[in-house]
């Protein structure tokens, strides 16, 4: 039993505990520094993960924990995402009534949950990891408890999240009932013909309800706009980046590793869910006047795009999802960091608050514009290449199954519509006249670096996709798709 495989998670949890302890002795005006410690610590852990290898899957705790390419890819992804979110939170520190130290720690614990989720090879670990994430988010969402919106977001996430969890548990129960084990890879007499067992199918479908909630796919997308809007901005960012990616890694594992036959069996429904998710997200974003809410809808749309990769059911599709997530990470981190800084005073997230941003800080305005352009999928930014790869994977399938062409058409339609509302944001920055705030924005140095990182990431993934895409392709080998 090589329990040391889970060292990255242990390190993250230890970092969180350390922060909590340090928090006790830190004077209130110095608490911001804790964030820098957390960032430094996470940076170290991220760097350390590059000593790990995922080419051969290694197992720990029986078969519960797996360390393979996919897990490693996502662990790095989550670490990087949390890094950006922590930097964001340091700018947000003065807006919390409760302690910022706890906020950092909760982010770290949620991060540990995500990393465990990436390695889950068993429904028990899947469940506890998801719950660790979800419960952390209950708190993170409502962390500004003096704000009605934050609490409302927390309550909505709480009820719907718990509802999804209940379905997840019930699903796990039936999967267990059908296969006789909690492992993703059942062995023994029951394991054959699982795709025919109605109990197993029922369980799997209910597990998918839980995961669908996490990634905000139709028909479980309903919470996303409200929660994105009301939550503190760093939480929203973490929800959009980390929580969604955790949902996707589990979805990939459950569908393609644990139940490939059933997944294929359900192919038409993936396509339908994918198409409706894309349409709902994009069309719903059209009338939005609040930038965080708009990004909430857009996150639904992006979940839909990534489901294209699931619907394609090929290695190329899965790799495209990973690639897309990479671009999405940098883009959203940039967007939310700018939103954090731009709405320092008013903090409504209303588009009008962006007016005159290019006078207050041309750099932030340009960064947000770049992020919107990337989200809209314009080359040469990351968003374009991700969409290109996803569509490519789907068209490839279309040669044998023409129904996929409809999916392509829907996705292209969504991409066109999306430009409309992303440009609304750009327009609000540069062309609005009414300015609510005029003071120039000061950008702390660390934040500036993180923004540079985001821009570099967006450009790098858009211009030189080679290296990253190779990683993604290596990673999805763990799923044994063809």
């Amino acid at each position: 039993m090589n329990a040391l495989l889970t060292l990255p998670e242990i390190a993250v949890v230890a970092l969180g505990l350390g922060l909590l302890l340090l928090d006790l002795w830190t004077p209130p005006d110095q608490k911001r520094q804790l964030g820098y410690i957390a960032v430094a610590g996470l940076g170290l852990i991220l760097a350390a993960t590059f000593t790990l290898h995922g080419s051969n899957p290694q197992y720990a705790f029986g078969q519960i924990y797996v360390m393979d390419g996919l897990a490693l890819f996502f662990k790095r992804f989550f670490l990087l995402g949390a890094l950006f979110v922590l930097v964001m939170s340091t700018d947000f520190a003065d807006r919390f009534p409760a302690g910022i130290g706890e906020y950092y720690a909760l982010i770290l614990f949620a991060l540990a949950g995500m990393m465990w989720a990436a390695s889950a090879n068993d429904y028990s670990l899947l469940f506890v990891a998801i719950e660790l994430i979800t419960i952390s988010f209950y708190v993170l969402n409502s962390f500004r408890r003096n704000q009605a919106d934050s609490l409302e977001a927390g309550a909505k996430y709480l009820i719907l999240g718990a509802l999804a969890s209940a379905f997840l548990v019930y699903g796990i129960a039936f999967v267990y009932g059908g296969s006789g084990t909690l492992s993703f890879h059942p062995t023994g007499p029951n394991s054959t013909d699982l795709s025919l067992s109605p109990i197993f199918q029922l369980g799997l479908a209910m597990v998918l309800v839980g995961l669908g909630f996490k990634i905000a796919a139709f028909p479980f997308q309903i919470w996303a706009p409200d929660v994105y809007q009301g939550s503190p901005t760093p939480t929203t960012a973490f929800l959009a980046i980390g929580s969604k990616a955790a949902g996707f890694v589990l979805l990939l594992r459950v569908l393609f590793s644990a139940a490939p036959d059933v997944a294929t069996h359900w192919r038409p429904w993936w396509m339908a869910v994918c198409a409706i998710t894309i349409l709902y997200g994009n069309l719903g974003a059209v009338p939005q006047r609040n930038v965080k809410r708009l990004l909430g809808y857009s996150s639904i749309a992006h979940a839909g795009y990534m489901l294209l990769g699931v619907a394609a059911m090929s290695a190329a599709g899965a790799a495209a999802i990973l690639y897309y997530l990479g671009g999405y990470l940098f883009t959203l981190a940039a967007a939310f960091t700018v939103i954090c800084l731009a709405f320092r005073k008013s903090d409504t997230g209303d588009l009008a608050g962006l007016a005159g941003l290019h006078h207050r800080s041309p750099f932030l305005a340009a960064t947000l514009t770049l992020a919107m352009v990337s989200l809209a999928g314009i080359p040469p930014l990351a968003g374009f290449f991700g969409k290109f790869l996803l569509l490519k994977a789907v068209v490839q399938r279309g040669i044998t199954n023409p129904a996929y062409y409809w999916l392509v058409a829907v996705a292209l339609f969504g991409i066109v519509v999306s430009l409309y509302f992303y440009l609304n944001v750009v327009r609000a920055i540069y062309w609005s006249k009414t300015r609510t705030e005029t003071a120039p924005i000061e950008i702390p140095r660390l934040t500036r670096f993180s923004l540079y990182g985001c821009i570099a990431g967006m450009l790098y993934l858009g211009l030189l996709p080679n290296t990253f895409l190779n990683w993604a392709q290596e990673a999805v080998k763990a799923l044994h798709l063809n």
Partner: protein
Amino acid sequence: MAARRAPPANCPAAQSLNLELMQEFLFYFFAILTLVFGLLVVASPSRRNPAASVFFLVLTLVCLAGLFVLLHAFFLAAVQIIVYAGAVMVLFLFVIMFLNVQQESHRPRTGTRMALSVLIAGAIVALLSRALGAASASPAFPQPAVEGGTGPLGTVLFTEYVLPFEVISVLILVAIIGVVCLGKKELK
């Protein structure tokens, strides 16, 4: 079930039959009570007071613990009563008292919403039973054998499932921090 295993010579067959009947009776007793109390939680007769719901929930959980015993999950039955019916429900009660919620529904319930809710819940149950019906036809389920005592369960928990167990500990830590953060008195 357990009694089916080679009955000892001094134990007549009638006794095992009695045991089985007893079990059957107990199952129906607990099952029906569980469902009735469950229904009362949802549709509490005293609408104004959520404390009534808590009361029925406790009863539901206790009846469930009875079912657990029938399934030989003794440890879980104990946990169910101690943790759930004990601690969690006290928490609920405490909060209800603390908030002293008196209000409730000045607005009338809308019929459509009610009908929709019933419809959806019914549909879910129907779908579940559909799958169950299909499953019961197949003889995939062998005779029961497992005993859920503290010993065996503890062994599995601390060997095979030690990682999720430890993750749970982090989760509880998160819960503690969360409660403190959300519940602390307002800072100036």
